[in-house]
């Protein structure tokens, strides 16, 4: 400290940029070492040449961006551009907890089926086909997904977003369902595939009228009801998994998807969902 400080006149000239080269240079050299004069410059409100609050916000946004999740990095490797990978990955369905929860339920169902009694097999039959469609619904129902709100406010095709997320969900959920299907005795794992895909397509189609979650809950409830009724009547899992039923599921999947594409513009309106 030299005891020399920028006086008020000099400060004013510096801030208003009407100083000379030598004076400006002196002020600047002094500011580097003098906290007191720095804060005087800072608080010269008329000195604000830029919106410092806004710059702070964008700086914080830039530094606080979390590292992309493993899933998001995977999507990028799969060829999605970064912003789309982010949009797909921020869906709540992809937060590990959800996936772990769904996988656990399925694992228990598979275990129950494995240890033997018919009830266990029916449990798996009831749960496995509806898990993917529930996950898809969670991945783009905005009640569950605050991230969706700003995404859809931006001019981004809703159809593309929904499809990208659906594909991502299926890529994650179907292997789980198929893998667990392997441990269920007596059936090939593939028989779960068509019902699962059919329900996903049905939920997508229905979501052009109602919210995805309502659609998924309705479909799931109906499926569980059907399974329950069949159980009471026949005690045989084979009925549901017969070829003609499988064909019916295939028709359901294709038909629903066509409906979904035909009514795609209703997606971009997305609200009002209650």
């Amino acid at each position, binding site marked *: 400290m030299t005891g020399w400080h920028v006086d008020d006149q000099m400060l004013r000239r510096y801030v208003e940029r009407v*100083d*000379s080269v030598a004076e400006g240079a002196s002020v600047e*050299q002094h500011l580097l070492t003098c906290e007191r004069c*720095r804060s005087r410059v800072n608080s010269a409100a008329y000195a604000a040449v830029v919106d410092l609050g806004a710059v702070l916000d964008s700086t*914080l946004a830039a530094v606080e961006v979390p590292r992309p999740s493993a899933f998001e990095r995977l999507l990028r490797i799969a060829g999605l551009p970064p912003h789309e990978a982010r949009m797909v990955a921020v869906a709540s369905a992809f937060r590990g907890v959800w996936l772990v929860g769904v996988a656990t339920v399925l694992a228990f169902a598979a275990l129950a089926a494995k240890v033997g009694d018919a009830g266990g097999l029916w449990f798996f039959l009831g749960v496995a086909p509806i898990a993917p469609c529930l996950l898809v619904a969670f991945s783009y129902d905005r009640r569950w997904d605050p991230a969706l709100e700003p995404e859809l406010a931006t001019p981004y095709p809703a159809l593309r977003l929904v499809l990208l997320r659906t594909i991502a969900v299926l890529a994650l959920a179907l292997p789980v369902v198929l893998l667990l299907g392997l441990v269920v005795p007596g059936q090939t794992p593939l028989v779960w595939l068509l019902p699962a895909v059919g329900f996903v397509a049905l939920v997508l189609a229905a979501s052009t009228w109602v919210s995805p979650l309502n659609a998924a809950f309705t479909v799931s409830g109906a499926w569980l009801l059907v399974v329950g009724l069949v159980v009471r009547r026949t005690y045989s899992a084979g009925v549901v998994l017969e070829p003609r039923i499988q064909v019916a599921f295939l028709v359901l999947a294709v038909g629903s998807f066509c409906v979904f594409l035909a009514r795609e513009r209703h997606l971009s309106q997305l609200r009002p969902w209650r």
Partner: protein
Amino acid sequence: MDGPPSDAVLLLRVAERDVGAFRALYERHAGWLALRLARRCNDGELVADAVQDTFVAVWQKPRSFRGDGDVAAWLWGIAIRRLVSRLRRRSDVEAVFGRSETVPAAEDEVLLSVEYGDLGAALARLSPEMRAVVQAVVLDGLTAREAAQVLDVPVSNVKTRLYRAKAQLRAALAEGMS
């Protein structure tokens, strides 16, 4: 009780990912940095970008401050370089080193000659080109190469001008002494 934490302490906390310390550092330094940068570049948007770049760099590498000298000087070193690199990408905006248009009022001139003696007058007598080089290299601490980029002249040119400017200043000061 000690006073508020020093800048160096804040930097250490930033290194531990303390957002509060980061904000505090920003509050202390963003203002004067922006003002000083704005004196080199008339484009407010570019200045804002440079300030943001600077603090992003601070967040990413707070430990590149070695603990010698003032944090403020270290920050300025980052800020001016960020501005230079932003300027390089924007050919439509010119840096303003060594403005020649501001002529101090007569009474200020008198004050100045009292305060700075002949150096102020000698600096003022330099040609705008030479003053720009002096300002970029001597006062802002850029290397000759960085100065060459921002002033858009060859490096050799910067060195020659700096050499001549120093000679001229020396001569002017010697003249004043005698």
